[in-house]
């Protein structure tokens, strides 16, 4: 017991010392989704920032919007920066969870204009594309090149895996049905367009062997031969390729999305956190992230710091961006509940 209490006392004094240091130094709390993604953020941005500025960054994990909501509601905010995709940002902002980021706080004029969001700083661009098994469709034989091919079970027979949620799948269905990329959301905005998208998904349904729910599943399913084609998040698909799995990504018609860093309303270390947001939106910083995960930078200026040999796997590189559309966050926010319900019903038919 004495040993234990001595250890306790030492621990307490260390804690107290840490407390006094922290009170005078710069610090903030950064919260993201753990795993390889947060590892990449740490290496690309947090560590260099800490070294350059002497700021102490405490990392937390699982910034579930529901937890932020509970945090803000109960008035005990302990987090500064949280991360999420576009839908999460806008939904959280509507619930009053995030502070608006003004140009005075972070200058975002150098970023791709179509990805700006009042309540979040774009940190990286990722994509939902599809990949096919090169065992099923090897080089030298016909290989799928578009969503129309993804839907073409005569020319490319075999089971498919599709995302178990409608985001990006309805877009893909319309493209497969011949809608031009630029018109996808005009068509999807109408009742007829929605029917058309759902009918197209229904057409493929007998050949969907897996409605995936986690990012690793489509890669695993192609690798194991469970399916011959799947849509999936490009970072995961790329990790499968790096691992030597027999798959190839088709970028034509990819649906790009944006990762954002948000400032929690009432953040206890607001100013130090803002300094970090500025750091992340520098072209040199933006050119670091791809080294750890295959996600692209959010500003054109970053490309001059990224070797051309890497461009082919990054969703925002000029050639790939030309063939992609951006997920329309506003439309989805408006329609998600109805679409998800209809999509669930379709999957259950």
């Amino acid at each position, binding site marked *: 017991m004495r040993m234990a209490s001595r250890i306790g006392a030492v621990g307490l004094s260390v804690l107290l010392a840490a407390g006094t240091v922290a009170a005078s130094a710069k610090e903030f709390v950064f919260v993201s989704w753990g795993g390889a993604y947060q590892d990449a953020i740490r290496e690309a941005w947090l560590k260099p920032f800490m070294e350059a500025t002497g700021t102490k960054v405490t990392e937390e*994990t699982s910034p579930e919007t529901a*937890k932020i909501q509970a945090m803000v509601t109960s008035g*005990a905010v302990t987090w500064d920066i949280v991360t999420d995709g576009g839908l999460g940002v806008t939904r959280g902002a509507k619930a009053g969870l995030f502070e608006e980021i003004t140009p005075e706080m972070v200058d975002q004029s150098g970023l791709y204009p179509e990805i700006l969001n009042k309540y979040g700083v774009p940190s990286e661009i990722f994509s939902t594309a599809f990949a096919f098994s090169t065992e099923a469709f090897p080089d030298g034989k016909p290989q799928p090149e578009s969503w129309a091919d993804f839907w073409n079970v005569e020319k490319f027979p075999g089971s498919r895996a599709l995302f178990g949620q409608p985001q990006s799948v309805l877009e893909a269905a319309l493209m497969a049905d011949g809608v031009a990329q630029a018109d996808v959301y005009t068509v999807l905005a109408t009742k007829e367009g929605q029917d058309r998208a759902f009918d197209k998904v229904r057409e493929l349904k007998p050949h969907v062997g897996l409605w995936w*729910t*986690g990012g690793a599943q489509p890669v*695993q399913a192609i*690798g*194991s031969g469970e399916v011959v084609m799947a849509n999936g998040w490009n970072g995961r698909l790329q990790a499968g390729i790096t691992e030597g799995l027999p798959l190839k990504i088709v970028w034509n018609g990819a649906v790009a999305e944006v990762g954002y860093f948000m400032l929690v309303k009432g953040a206890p270390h607001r100013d130090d956190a803002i300094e970090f947001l500025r750091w992340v939106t520098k072209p040199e910083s933006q050119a670091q992230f791809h080294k750890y995960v295959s996600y692209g930078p959010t500003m054109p200026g970053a490309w001059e710091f990224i070797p051309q040999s890497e461009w082919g796997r990054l969703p925002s590189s000029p050639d790939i961006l030309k063939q992609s559309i951006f997920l329309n966050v506003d439309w989805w926010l408006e329609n998600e509940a109805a679409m*998800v319900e209809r999509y669930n*019903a379709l999957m259950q038919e």
Partner: protein
Amino acid sequence: MTVLAGDEAARPPPSRLPLLPRGAGLAAGLVVLVFAVLFVWPIVRLIATTVFVDARGWTAFATIVSSPMYRTAFTNTFFISGLVTLITLLAAYPIAYFMATVQPRTAKLIAFVVLLPFWTSALVRTTAWMVLLQRRGIVNSLLMNTGITDAPIPLLYNLSGVIIGMVHVLLPFMVLPLYATFLSVDQRLIAAAEGLGAPRFTVLRRIVLPLTAPGAAAGALIVFMSAIGTFITPVLMGGPRQMMIAQAISYHMQKQLDWQMAGALSLVLLAVTLVLFLVYRQVFGLDRLVAADAGVAGDPDGPLRGVLGLGRLPAGIMAVAVGLFLIAPIAMVYPLSISSSPFLQFPPARWTFDWYAKLADDPKWLRAALSSLRVAAEAIALSVILGTAAAVAASRIAPRLRAGMEVLILLPMVVPTIITAIALYSQYAPLGILGSPESLAIGHTILAAPFVFITVSASLKSFDRNLELAALGLGASWSAMFRRIMLPAILPGILAGAVFAFITSFDDVVLSIFLTNSASRTLPRVIYEGIKDDTDPAVVALAAILITISFGAFLLSLLARDRRA
């Protein structure tokens, strides 16, 4: 099943006996207070401040009734839970029977096998099942090579996937209570019946089944209630057609931030479950089941051993089959943990110990493991005290009050964990105790207490009240009687409850996400964060280590027994 409620009414009801009614009332009151403060109040407050803040809260109920999606989800939830309960019941009987009629050492081995699933997290178990069950998986290869089928059978992403996954993880909840009642069967009754010429089937039907029924009823209650709240297994191993209501609630809570809809769905789920529970209680309730007077109990060589006659062989084969079913995915963890592929391809390109090295490199794993053990230890201690006190008190108070108390204590099993998590978070945040392992331990205590309550109540059923009366009559104090007479009798129930408490704490992700921070987060949370969208084979290596440790502990316990003997 002849000695039921009717006969009981003819005897003087035991509750009229002077068995410390005031003490029982006091204990019951305390338990109710603890539950009210730590659980009911936060939930009521959350629901009241989210669902019924405006008119939309009421229309949410109309939406639920009219929407085919929710109707399907509710039907699925109760259908799948019922089916899982039935299958676990059938699978658990032979196992529990053999545990009670083999030598203690073998019984321990069986218990070890039954508890194996809990050393892996839900996500790791699912991954292992995928390797076994997928189209080109091991099971399908076996079936096709042996010519049983020509084409692969779809075992995953459909009803069979969900059932396999859920039965696997819920089976222990059925086996342990059953085993506890098998141990307390008065084997003289069997000997007497056989001596009087009763045929084997009659002995089974009139003696063994009724005497083990409390265990079956307790197990079925636990499995059914747990199945209703299951979340991860149906998502990963089922298809869209198997969507269950916990999934929909979590979606509205976390993705849509629509707490009104989530709260309304939870209330409907709660209402339906409570109705089912009250019906169940009327038919199979612990009250209704016969109280066995334990005499010569727990003797592995007693007449119970021979009760199946030649039927012991098929029953044995079935028990072994169930054992293999439990072990298969766990055994897969070892080869997977040294596979070079982070996407868990099997067989892999090459073998490697990289994932073990990765575990050793990152201190977060050890820290999380220690935090998990600490939280689990605290939760076990608290829930055993709370659950046992509740069970003893409930058995001594008026039957009408008892029904209310049972409902109250079983509530945490029915309320979706995500709702509990957010309610507790909102309650703890202003108090400044968030993030401490203790705040999570309190949460786990609430989740685990119902298990202890059920298992202890079941063993109290077979506790001979005359012993208690005799002890008190001979001048023993109530606490001396409890220590020397009652405690030893209900110990199997307490131990089963403690094991369930450990499992509950060690397998929880949702409460941990809300109530801990990066310093105090538990192992399941770290595992979840590692492979929710990603793949991190380090968690498979970790599972292999945990299984090995539990196996080591098992071997040690055998050695320790040898030395004593």
